[in-house]
């Protein structure tokens, strides 16, 4: 299972799901689904997210035990 700290990073940046969704070019449902581990994003979207937060993909997403 892949886990992420998107919610934490978003809270640090103080942006809403809608703002993040708009910046990345996806729907708010997608951000909600990723944060709640209901959906694993594609490599392209993971790279976009990591670049937006200035982190590496590994810092945002990891395989949970």
């Amino acid at each position, binding site marked *: 299972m892949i886990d992420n700290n998107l919610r934490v990073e978003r809270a640090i940046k103080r942006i*809403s799901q809608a703002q993040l969704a708009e910046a990345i070019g*996806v729907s708010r*449902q997608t951000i*909600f689904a990723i944060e709640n581990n209901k959906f694993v994003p594609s490599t*392209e979207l993971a790279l976009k997210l990591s670049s937006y937060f200035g982190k590496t993909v590994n810092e945002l997403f990891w395989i949970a035990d």
Partner: protein
Amino acid sequence: MNTKSYLLPHYCQNIGRGMMAIGAICTLVYGFIEAEFIEASQQWAIGILFFLGWVLLCLGFMAICLSQEEEEDEYISSLRARSVFIIVVYVFIVNMMQVAFAQFFIRFCSLETNATIQSIFSFFTNVPLISFVYLAIFRGTLYIEKRKARDDRQ
């Protein structure tokens, strides 16, 4: 996005809705003008009206089903894929039941009963109904997801 999308552009949904509306009107007119009130020489006209209505209804549904949503992305595509999977399973089950029932009833029931059962099954496998069920599942899931995302707004 590098992955090629085979879906039609979003505006095709409106074209589909228009086609469906015209198709529905044609079908309704066909329903009101009973064949018995038409002279034998005009039967072809009512046949064309029904055919046109049915084709437009099917094409309209197809256009809506195969068009992108306003903000189509990979998550929405995954919801679409899930809905398609459910519909494929539904069609498989109905078809399997149709064959099984046909094989069973053809031996034990009258031809009339068998024809009724066949028509019930063909109703459950017609294109507009399948498209409608698909849209209901897909749009229903999308609505639930949107609501959940709205509730979680922060």
